[in-house]
């Protein structure tokens, strides 16, 4: 994310299905594997890959997450719950 210039670009509008497709695309896995109840840690090879995926997702959707947002995130739907409100704002 290019933070030097400060504000984020306008959020990209996606629905839950497109969101899961984006995750699949970033991780280069079949979109069938990315279901709402999937644990995020089961989709990546290690924790650093998860960091990388979350950052790239924010890039793609022009949203921002913090550690606090991710504290209780375990599944794809948990992550969607943190991102969706920013897409609507």
């Amino acid at each position, binding site marked *: *994310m*290019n933070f030097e210039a400060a504000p984020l670009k306008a959020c990209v509008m996606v629905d839950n299905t497109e969101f899961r497709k984006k995750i699949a695309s970033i991780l280069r896995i079949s979109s069938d594997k990315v279901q709402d109840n999937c644990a995020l840690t089961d989709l990546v090879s290690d924790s*650093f890959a998860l960091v990388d995926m979350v*950052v790239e997702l924010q*890039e793609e959707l022009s949203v*921002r997450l913090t550690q606090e947002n991710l504290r209780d995130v375990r599944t794809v739907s948990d992550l969607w719950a943190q991102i969706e409100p920013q897409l609507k704002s």
Partner: protein
Amino acid sequence: MNDKLKENEIWLLSFYRTSEISGALFFGKLCKSLRPGPIQHDMTKHFSDEAVHSWLWTDCIERMGAKPLKLADAYQDQYLAVAGMPANMMEILALTHVFEKRVIRQYALHSRVPELNPEIGGTLSKIMDDEKWHLSWVHDALAKMEPEFGKEYIDQTIKKFWDADQEVYNRTMNEHEERVRDLGILMPEAHSGI
């Protein structure tokens, strides 16, 4: 040098090597996700430096007549378990700032070992200059994020990762105390700042 000492030395250099490889891979992947800009520019040099450092340690070990050990985990692998996952670029850079300080401190401690093998001393010296630049660009990038995140929040984030680093460092040193003590690398006091 006796065999045990040499074995410990090769283990430590392999530990450095593994850590540099992990850094290069993480930042390399991250660079693919970033939009063009100053952070992408500097992070690209950063990961290329880390890759070169892993080569320098590989070469150093081989010049000493040994082979690098295949180690499962790098130092920074333990960060996420202790500190939690950084979620955005500011948090990643805050964690990197802490880690780079730790690296510089560890390499400086190692470079002061009496009768240090010149191969190791030369490698440490080459790497240290790059590490100082890493700290510098990350510091500058965090300063530029202050209008967006606030200096206080950035400082709090760095402090949180500092505390985590202290825990990881103490744990690592305790786990490998014998090796490190044998090499004459003095452990800093448990709660000293970095």
